């Protein structure tokens, strides 16, 4: 089971934050096929958001084909989002850590690192397969 965090100041709509956190949990392998998502009641009791926000997020995930609602039981993971297997992210994360350390030692601050990453992503965008949405590249 996963828990959600909703940041009111992030600028990302709360329902999208939930969608992104479920996708992220699926990519990282925290959630697997057959796992149950927390019920709407459980989510709102924990994070105090509007129930319709959670319903909207779950409907979006259902439309994407990632989860399915089973009548009277709850919402369950149907499949993982397209992309590499779960281990890939942690492996790439580790090599990114090395890179970040190197960048810091070279005197780059967070802002420069972020803008360098953005520029690199943008210049690489043309080379990326067209079925990857830009959003997924950032997340």
């Amino acid at each position: 089971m996963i828990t959600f965090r909703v940041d009111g100041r992030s600028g990302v709509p709360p329902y999208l934050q939930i969608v992104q956190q479920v996708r992220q949990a699926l990519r990282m392998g925290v959630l697997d096929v057959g796992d149950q998502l927390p019920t709407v009641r459980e989510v709102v009791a924990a994070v105090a958001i509007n129930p319709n926000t959670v319903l909207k997020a779950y409907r979006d995930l259902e439309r994407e084909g990632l989860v399915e609602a089973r009548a009277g039981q709850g919402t369950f993971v149907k499949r993982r989002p397209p992309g590499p297997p779960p281990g890939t992210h942690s492996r790439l994360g580790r090599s990114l850590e090395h890179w970040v350390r190197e960048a810091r030692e070279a005197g780059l601050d967070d802002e420069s690192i972020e803008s360098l990453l953005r520029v690199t992503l943008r210049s690489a965008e043309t080379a990326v397969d067209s079925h990857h949405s830009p959003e997924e590249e950032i997340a």
Partner: protein
Amino acid sequence: MNTCAIETQGLSKRYHRVTALSDCSVTVPEGRISALVGPNGAGKTTLLRLLAGLARPTGGSALVLGGTPRQDPAFLSEVGFLAQEIPLYRRFSAQDHIQVGAHMNLRWDAESVRTRLTGLNIPLDRPVGKLSGGQRAQVALALTLAKQPRVLLLDEPVAALDPLARRHFLGTLTAAVAESGGELTVVLSSHLITDLERVSDHMILLSASRVQLCGDTDELLAEHKLLVGPRKDTAALERMHKVVHTVSTPRQARLLVRLSGPVFDPAYEAEDVSLEDLVLGYMGADAPAAYAHLAAVGDDQ
């Protein structure tokens, strides 16, 4: 889902020569959590009291769940009202209140109160005067929910609570709405916009005794933009759109605008608005000078 839990038409309330609420027409669809916002003295408490049947209108009409608000058991069993000064007997415990409530209400789910409060580690046998403010608010909310109302009217219930107690209170509230499966409608007045942004999906904005905005929050946010551009004559802009509020420096102007179509003037850059932009903009547009500085502060951020 599309039926209205609350509908008012030209609702007005005067106390002697003072107009507390004027020509108020609002609708709240069933299953929504509606944020009731506006400066102090805008008429929020008056509207809630009229809807609860605690005051009689001097003009217009209100329908709550299809009936006129009144002090009779059938109406009151469907409508829960929680006043700002939490109405509990300080020497009574939660358990005592549960027993009193059972005598006073047609429908009473005593077990739900015990379950909610035990889940929050709030002792049932301690006098409520010895509980913390947050715990007292939770007791009052749990008691109000025990009569299984279909409309819940809350007048600044979290104003005096610390952030954690507020989060827990709003968690209990939203969980009750989720449990109702779309049958419980809430109107919640508060000055804490970040809280309202999380829990509400509908809003009523009052200012100077009048309704400025009423509707689905996402739709209202989408209809408004913050236009940033050079300070200049806005007559052309105002022919098509409604300029709600303007903050300008000698060179630059920021306009909160309600759009009726696209903005063609390339001099302006359009930014999305937050609930806070909307509330402060409308307060600044029609509020006394005391709120003008507040609107300016909001625009600077």
